[in-house]
């Protein structure tokens, strides 16, 4: 870009203020104090504003992942094999220019590290500009699922007030740009099987859940038998199988249900923590 020229119509800098040679020398010396800024400074300013993203690598239970961010928050998490693949994915998913010269602020880095290691209290700002409201509703609801627990797609749909949008919830989760930070691996199919995962497929989803202490094999065994809910014969409360309250039920008092109707018919009420709902699978 050329030097800006408006404002300069009555430019008076050509008219010398002084002809005193001593002062002319000082003027010349001061002009010498112009110095170009570091090459990456403009990029860093643009990243801070959020018009350009930067990215760096983090290590997780699933191996190294790249995290794209700007001054407003994290914009993408992806396990691409190399920089070229990461850039291509970022172009497709985010669409903003991507640079690598900006240093992530320490506070953001620490928050991301804590969240990736499972600390839900670490607050990581997310920049989800340009996403549909429905998608954001799905992702924000997913943030509420505790570590080590899973919820079916239909549960998200019911919780955000769109009980019939089960398939749309699945699609929105598949487009989650920030997996692990928004724990879409904790959302499973209504029949209890694990389902798809955007960060490297179903095997990675299983690994992510097992790393958090979810007994995936037991979950699959329950679902194979058609069991969707577990109740306690002492409290007469029924839960989703991974709800921490369901995990406290002793073997002797555990009762399995295929549907909420069956549980209600047996005189059980729904848990107020995991709020189980029936969804046509």
């Amino acid at each position, binding site marked *: *870009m050329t030097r800006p020229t408006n*404002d300069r119509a009555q430019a008076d800098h050509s008219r010398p203020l002084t002809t005193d040679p001593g002062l002319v020398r*000082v003027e010349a010396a001061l002009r010498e104090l112009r110095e170009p800024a570091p090459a990456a*400074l403009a990029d860093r*300013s*643009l990243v801070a504003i959020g018009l350009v993203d930067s990215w760096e690598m983090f290590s997780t239970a699933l191996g190294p992942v790249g995290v794209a961010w700007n001054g407003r928050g994290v914009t993408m998490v992806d396990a691409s094999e190399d920089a070229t693949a990461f850039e291509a994915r970022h172009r497709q998913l985010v669409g903003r220019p991507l640079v690598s010269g900006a240093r992530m602020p320490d506070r953001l880095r620490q928050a991301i590290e804590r969240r990736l290691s499972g600390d839900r209290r670490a607050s990581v700002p997310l920049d989800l500009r340009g996403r549909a409201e429905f998608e954001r509703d799905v992702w924000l609801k997913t943030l509420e699922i505790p570590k080590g627990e899973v919820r079916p797609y239909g549960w998200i749909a019911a919780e955000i007030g769109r009980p019939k949008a089960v398939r749309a919830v699945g699609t929105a989760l598949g487009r989650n740009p920030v997996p692990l930070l928004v724990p879409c691996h904790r959302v499973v199919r209504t029949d209890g099987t694990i389902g798809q995962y955007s960060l490297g497929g179903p095997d990675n989803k299983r690994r992510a859940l097992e790393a958090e202490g979810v007994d995936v094999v037991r979950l699959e065994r329950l679902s194979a038998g058609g069991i969707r809910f577990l109740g306690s014969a002492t409290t007469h409360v029924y839960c989703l199988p991974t709800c921490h309250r369901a995990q406290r039920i002793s073997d002797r008092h555990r009762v399995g249900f295929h549907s909420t109707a069956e549980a209600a018919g047996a005189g059980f009420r729904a848990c107020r923590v995991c709020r189980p709902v029936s969804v046509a699978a």
Partner: protein
Amino acid sequence: MDDMELTALLAVDLDAAFETLVRGHTDRCHAIALRLLGRPADAEEVTQDTFLRAYRALADYPPERIRELRLRPWLAAIAVNLARNRRRRLSDRAPALSLAAVPADGDLATYDPPAGPATSPEAVSIGHAERDRWAALLAALPEHYRLPLVLRYVDDQSYAEMSEALGRPEGTLKSQVHRGLGLLRAAWDAAEREEAIA
């Protein structure tokens, strides 16, 4: 693209046009901040903050106001204010002794110029060492002389632009620039004399 075309674009689509503004004005905002603050790390942070403030301001301005903006003095004013605040904060924490050496009334007889940065002639070219000494002398001037000198010579502004950026009449600025140049020359000569004696 000149600044008038740029303000027209900023008024229509801020996000699309702002990158051009950042790329076109980073060098000068950085130069202003560097000569007001001295430390590169401070200058870089002030430059980033300048554009962040500018972006937020433009996001709130109605399009007519953006079209009428004169970007050079407007950005300079933001950079100067941020640099001033930072300098005040820094000097509260650790008073920089060398920066208080010039008496405000410019009494040159008692003026004790600050020592220039320690440089060994072998390591640094004369040009570089000389520049650093001018920079140190400039940094030691009282703010009401230093600011106009930086905008005038480091940023190449017209007096009309300086008047807008600093909110001072052009006549005042001209005499401050003239006085500032004289103070700098005197400080330079005094340092030379001292070197000759030593």
